[in-house]
């Protein structure tokens, strides 16, 4: 049972300028664990996922998903432009 959970943690963390160490300390995890989550090598528990989401004040589904995320630019500016070939079945509302 190793369902792959996709996440946007690296993108959000970089956008908010939060280091792995700072995030790890805030959510009670080891900084390596944050790195492994970002690389898709570890799926966080619901508890940890919720704590990470709460830290960024985002809904958990904004950070974690069972389906691949669309590029953020697609979600913000819409699809159809150049470089948006990586569209998936995930829809936004």
């Amino acid at each position, binding site marked *: 049972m190793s369902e792959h959970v996709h996440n946007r943690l690296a993108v959000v*963390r*970089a956008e908010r*300028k*939060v*280091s*792995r*160490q700072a995030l*790890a*300390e805030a959510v*009670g*995890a*080891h900084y*390596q*664990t*944050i*790195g*492994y989550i*970002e*690389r898709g*090598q*570890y799926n*966080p*528990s*619901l*508890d*940890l996922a919720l704590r990470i989401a709460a830290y960024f004040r985002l809904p958990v589904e904004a950070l974690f998903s069972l389906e691949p995320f669309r590029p953020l630019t697609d979600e913000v500016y819409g699809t159809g432009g150049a470089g948006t070939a990586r569209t998936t079945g995930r829809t936004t509302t």
Partner: protein
Amino acid sequence: MTTSTSTSAGPGPEPLAPATRYDRWLFKTMNDARTKRYHATRAARRRIVLAHMATTAVGLAAMVGAFVRASPWLLAALPVALLAWVPLTGFLNSMTRGLLELRVRVLDERQVAERGEVHARAHRAVSWVLTAALLGFYVAWLAGASVADLAVPLAAAGLLVWALHRLLPLWIAALRVRDEPEDDEVEALPAT
């Protein structure tokens, strides 16, 4: 410093005692970044594990040899082996970030799960070694060997199983370590 919480479904985790000053010191020691470069790659980690196995074998051989030959002089190899064994053990603990040395209350959920996996694998391996040793001694007894004949093999097997019981989890944990995540670009950014 991390705080561990259970990931299982159910009524929730048992509250853990807060980290002590010793816990914090050990956590800091085990996460000392100065040794990172010595075990940054998988190849380097394997070399350290193999070197640790070799020095352990030398130490055990010295102890068994001293027992077999009833000569304490062979024990002189023990401190020599220890001179290499102690820093190598430090490297193993460093590369696993103290996975087996730190108390559960300072590990996070991934580390707790990893520790369980490492102990399960080591337990399985040691169980097979114990079974093989018992079968071997049983066969030797059926073949007519006396207890006196088996004294040295018994001592050696006992020492080997004891060493495996103590060290196999550390070796397995070290071999399962993955490369560190790449450098954190956020740390290099100026604060805004």
